[in-house]
């Protein structure tokens, strides 16, 4: 995009700056819109599985429901509890929201269509996703209320636990792709499965990692069945209990943006990203963005499906799954993958 601005007669430095800002807006604004629509989709899928109608009043088929909700919270009064730590109380939702947007900088939407094509893209994602926990911890502590604090404790323990196994799973992918660059990882998946399927997931060695990554991403975003941070039967509404109006909306948007990010990561890391599912020339006529969005929507459907059907885990079961099952298996898999690659690729 920088070249376009330079060709319009702009100074290269300015062109770079303007291009970057345009890129950020091109990602962030559609993301906000899709978060609004995905909340609607989530509610509709959930309702369909529960044999209900879901939102169907505002706009055709209830399509404008999320916007109506957004307008409602926008017009509400922001209530800050007297005992709350004002600064941190207000900064917490902002952290959640900002961090949820930041990680999108390294997601490749098409061949080379990425805002920041950096060598350490995957590490950047890990770094940013480990920041998401601060919004939750700070909101829980700054609310100066028991239930949010419990929720914050749970959330931080949960996110740290699952980040460990996610880190090891990503190492497996990196070993196969031979790069930390997201674009290179997608390119490495071309014809990976039997020479025809464009996905790491069809590799027998990587398929278990793909399954574990899907489950871990449910836990990382605190979605059902791992939504213990906002378990309404135990903790009222978790860390969001004391929040109202836009502060609450920021949490809400950040949460769904994170869910979308995790769906995207599933698609990009294991299921071929912007590549078509089959390595067959006519399929490349369809733009890569469409393939990527189709995969993201599929994983979002899986997320909603799981939310509607699977009962909530107990907290000790959650921790056991993270530390005693996923961590040893993912660690073992790194050895297996390294050994396999040593024998086949590097010998």
């Amino acid at each position, binding site marked *: 995009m920088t070249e376009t601005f330079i060709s319009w007669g702009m100074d290269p*430095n300015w062109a770079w700056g303007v291009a970057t800002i345009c890129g950020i807006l091109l990602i962030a604004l559609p993301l906000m819109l899709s978060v609004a629509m995905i909340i609607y989709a989530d509610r509709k899928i959930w309702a369909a599985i529960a044999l209900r109608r879901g939102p169907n009043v505002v706009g055709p088929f209830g399509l404008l429901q999320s916007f109506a909700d957004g307008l409602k919270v926008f017009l509400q009064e922001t209530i800050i509890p007297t005992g709350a*730590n004002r*600064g*941190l109380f207000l900064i917490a939702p902002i952290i959640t929201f900002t961090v949820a947007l930041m990680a999108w900088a390294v997601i490749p939407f098409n061949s080379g269509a990425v805002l920041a094509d*950096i*060598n*350490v893209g995957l*590490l*950047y994602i*890990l*770094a940013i996703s*480990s*920041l998401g*926990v*601060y919004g939750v*911890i*700070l909101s829980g*502590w700054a609310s100066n209320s028991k239930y949010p*604090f419990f929720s914050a*404790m749970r959330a*931080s323990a949960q996110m*740290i636990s699952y*980040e460990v196994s996610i880190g090891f799973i990503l190492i497996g992918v990196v070993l196969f792709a031979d790069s*930390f660059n997201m674009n290179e990882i997608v390119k490495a998946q071309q014809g990976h499965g039997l020479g025809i399927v464009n996905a790491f997931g069809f590799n027998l060695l990587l398929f278990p990692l793909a399954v574990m990554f899907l489950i871990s991403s449910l836990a990382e975003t605190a979605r059902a069945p791992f939504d213990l941070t906002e378990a309404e039967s135990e903790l009222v509404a978790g860390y969001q209990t004391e929040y109202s109006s836009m502060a609450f909306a920021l949490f809400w948007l950040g949460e769904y943006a994170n869910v979308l990010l995790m769906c995207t990561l599933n698609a990009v890391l294991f299921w071929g990203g912007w590549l078509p599912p089959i390595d067959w020339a006519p399929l490349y006529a369809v733009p890569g963005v469409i393939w990527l969005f189709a995969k993201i929507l599929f994983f979002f459907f899986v997320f909603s499906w799981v939310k509607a059907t699977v009962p909530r885990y107990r907290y*000790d079961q959650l921790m*056991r799954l993270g530390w005693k099952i996923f961590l040893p298996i993912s660690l073992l898999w790194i050895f297996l993958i390294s050994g396999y690659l040593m024998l086949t690729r590097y010998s």
Partner: protein
Amino acid sequence: MIQYIAFWLFAFMVIASATMVILARNPVHSVMWLILAFFNAAGLMLLAGAEFIAMLLVIVYVGAVAVLFLFVVMMLDIDFAELRAGFVRYLPLGALVAIILAAELIFAVGAWSAGGVDLAARAAPVVSDKSNIQQIGELLYTRYIFLFEAAGIVLLVAMIGAIVLTHRQRGGVRTQNISHQNQRRPQDATRLVDPGVGQGMEL
């Protein structure tokens, strides 16, 4: 140009937030300033072209260590009056540490301006077409392999030590047998009985 602006911004923010770490009254605020300092330090690393170190700094320090700090600090029962009362008592010790640090800084600056050791000759040559991670990996696994493994052993010993310290056998605790729980079926847990009138039933 933008590098200079970024450098001065990051450098100023590191020093300012590091100062705020010790000036903030509330320990939780201190940890938050510390996190900001880590962040800006990562920014400085990025400017120096060490993107791998920058990301590791954020992942390890901000993502894990600072979260545990925050955990501990939040649980503390903080009495602000007591915190201020201890100031005079620790003043001599604090002053001593400050003097030592200042002396070291002056020494370091003096040695640096005197020319000092030629570090550039000892550092590995930078190959520009390879990524940061590859270069670090190649050095770690060839030239510094023994140091690297020694570091690994130290970490392993620390881990075992932590486990030994915290692991204790307690009597009288009913632990869960997960496979037993998973094997449980509805027919094991429920029983359909049809007690006669006035007979009651055995539980």
